[in-house]
């Protein structure tokens, strides 16, 4: 038994050493990776860079040190290795050009399905304008967001550009108070984003359909949207809400740049949800409290709030019926109908169409009304069950009294 184990171990060792031999043979082939290339001169001094680089996507694609830095990697002495077209630490502008030399070439990028307009986009961005036109060294270059050597794909959860990591990547600079003070910019974007609807979706629910910074500002072409563009930006995802907004009285001035569109009520990075009970009050921040428009706001508040309460009551009624053993498939179906109308209310309120709101409110109430009536009838039925106790205890007590008298009589 033990001998067999030793034999197996020996066989394993032999197999492993044979495997090592195969690896050495492969290393001699032209398609070798940096980490396995013992003749590579750069790693004599830059082992840390090699280690980082070898974990990135570029190493996987066969890119080598000299492809970006030039020099002669077959040399082991610094003067000889750094000879010729050699770039040790490219400047920020040189970095952009260096990356673009491959990333703007459709023939090289086609195989990876990557777009080749990053440089063109970058030039239009605020970052690009500062760096490329004003030569401002505060502005970020490619390697500030993507790292210089350890470049991971966006699908890698450790990458700086993985969806839930993007806000942190942007915040490296945008939370730097002294840096942002120079440009008169706030530093609370990440803080507000984190607690907002989008932040909760991305960080807590891991819903990567929700936008991070780049969803609204763009990535390489990062710029704050112009006032007239705000509703278009939000409308990329909130299609129906944007359409309803354009249909309403706010739509036209917002498109003309006279109103700040969605962020006027919901704020920008905080993407605040407006609780139904605050709708009317919110309108009075722009409209006079006595005005007709404020009255419309309070009417919407009334409709939405009432529908919400009706829905909540219907949900409680359904839970109660289910807990008491009643089959509730019909009621749940009605609840879904009411809930659909309630969600449509959320859309229609952006168009300020009171007539449509009233109609949807009625739809919610008619469905929830039936659910509640059913629940009340069932509750009454269950209450009537308690009446069984009257004859039960009447009979029981009569029997006990009879038995007590009889037993007393027998005891004498």
């Amino acid at each position, binding site marked *: 038994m033990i001998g067999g184990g030793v034999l197996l171990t020996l066989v394993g060792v032999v197999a492993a050493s044979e495997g090592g031999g195969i690896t050495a043979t492969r290393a001699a082939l032209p398609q070798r990776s940096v980490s396995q290339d013992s003749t590579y001169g750069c790693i004599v001094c830059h082992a*840390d860079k090699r280690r980082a680089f070898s974990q990135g996507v570029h190493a996987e694609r066969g890119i080598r040190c000299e492809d970006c830095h030039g020099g002669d990697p077959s040399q082991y002495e610094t003067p000889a290795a750094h000879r010729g077209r050699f770039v040790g630490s*490219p400047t920020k502008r040189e970095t952009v050009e260096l990356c673009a030399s491959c990333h703007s070439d459709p023939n090289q990028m086609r195989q990876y399905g990557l777009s080749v307009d990053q440089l063109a986009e970058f030039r239009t961005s605020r970052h690009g304008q500062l760096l490329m036109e004003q030569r401002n060294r505060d502005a970020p270059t490619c390697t500030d967001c993507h790292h210089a050597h350890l470049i991971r794909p966006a699908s890698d959860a450790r990458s700086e550009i993985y969806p839930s990591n993007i806000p*942190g*990547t942007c915040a490296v600079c945008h939370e730097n108070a002294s840096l942002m003070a120079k440009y008169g910019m706030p530093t609370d974007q990440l803080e507000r984003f984190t607690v907002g609807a989008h932040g909760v979706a991305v960080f807590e629910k891991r819903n990567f359909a929700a936008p991070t910074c780049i969803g609204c500002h763009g990535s390489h072409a990062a710029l704050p949207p112009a006032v007239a563009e705000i509703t278009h930006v939000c409308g990329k995802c909130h299609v129906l809400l944007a359409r309803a907004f354009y249909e309403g009285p706010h739509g036209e001035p917002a498109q003309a740049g006279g109103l700040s569109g969605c962020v006027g009520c919901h704020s920008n990075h905080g993407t605040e949800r407006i609780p139904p009970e605050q709708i009317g009050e919110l309108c009075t921040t722009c409209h006079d409290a006595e005005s007709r428009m404020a009255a419309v706001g309070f009417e919407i508040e009334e409709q939405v709030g009432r529908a919400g309460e009706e829905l909540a009551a219907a949900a409680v009624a359904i839970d109660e019926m289910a807990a008491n053993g009643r089959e509730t498939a019909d009621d749940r179906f009605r609840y879904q109908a009411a809930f659909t109308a309630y969600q449509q209310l959320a859309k229609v309120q952006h168009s300020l169409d009171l007539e449509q709101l009233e109609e949807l409110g009625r739809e919610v109430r008619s469905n929830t009304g039936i659910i509640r009536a059913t629940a009340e009838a069932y509750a009454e039925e*269950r209450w009537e069950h308690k009446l069984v*106790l009257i004859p*039960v205890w009447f009979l029981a007590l009569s029997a006990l009294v009879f*038995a007590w008298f*009889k*037993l007393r009589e027998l005891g004498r």
Partner: protein
Amino acid sequence: MRRTLNAVHGWLVGVWEDIKASTDSSLLGMARFVGLLYGPIDRSLRIDLALRKSLRYRLAPQVGWRHAPGGVTYLLFIVLVVTGVLMAAYYRPSVEEAYPSVQHIVSEARFGWLVRDLHYWCANLIVIAVLAHMARVFFEAAYKPPRETNWLIGLLLLFVVLAFGATGYLLPWDQWSYWTVTEVLNAVAHIPLVGRPIADAAMGDVIPSGATLSRFFALHVIVLPWIAFALLGYHFTLVRRRGIAPAMDSEDEAARWRSSGKHEPGEKPQGVPFFPTHLLRSFSVAVLTLAVAITLAVLFPRVLADPADPYALPDELVSTWVPVDVSLALIRLAGPWGFALFTLLGVSLVLIPLLDRGPERRLRRRPIVATLGLTFFVGYLALWIAGRAIGSVPPSASLGEAVEERAVPVGSSARPPQVQPARPAAAPENADEGGGR
């Protein structure tokens, strides 16, 4: 005319006598077979005489109200059988139909709600009644020779009652029953050596599923009732054969009461007459028990949780059975070791008749037994009350490995992880170089 009537009368009497003669022996045989009658009854004893004889039966004078829990247990068992049979007419033991059929029983079938809640409450009350009966037997030393066999039969009956509850618990097929059974089978699987095979055999699958439901249903309505009836027959026969145990401070006079409850010839009759005194007392207790059970069923119906869903761990498990409350309180208050020790204490009661065989019946002379018994019975009651007050969260919620082991994905009801916005990870190199960060 008169002659004709006489002839008809004579003919009818003849027929009646013939029928009696041919049925008496078989009826007696049946009665004896199921243990209703015991004594020197044979073919020559007519059934009306047998009835009169049993009515003349007298119980020993020490038999009193404290002997009621035994009878109450039997009454509750009968109620459970009747309500169970009524529900079996509607219940369907399959994953798809179990829950809807329970809904049908509760909300559609006539008086189905009462039948089901009565079944549920009697299943709880029977545990209390069994323990009360056991406590009386224990403290009065009624387990001592020659009645030690009946103590062991009684313990088997206790396990049968517990098995009834455990198997019936799953049948509503709602979230609480599903996950409680999951937890219990997980716990059973952790018992060394035998645990895993037992849990696997009960489960019939890698998680509680349709196979488990079928197994539990078969045990609950086919296997366990037969075992229970057989053990009950034996239990009652032994009670009649050995007589009711004497009071703690008196000698065992069972020999005098043993055979038929009558005294030796010529002795003045003593004891409590079975009819009408004892029957009336039993009747009172039965009426009161039924009224209480119906009241509990009407006022505190067993709520149905959502239908069982192996993919959604509920936030809360509501216990609906006394032993579950007790186990919960034990594990929360005394930890696993406390649970193990208490269980050991309960199991050690099995050995009592083997160890405590002396003639002493007075409680003060049996301090060790009295302490053990008091700890177990009072502890059980206290733990039941404590368990009711404790809200239960499925232990699997905190035992990640147990969930993973069974490959059950945690549903949306699980607590969301505390997620902080991630920062880019520090790279394994110096960041002070131009271009690099």
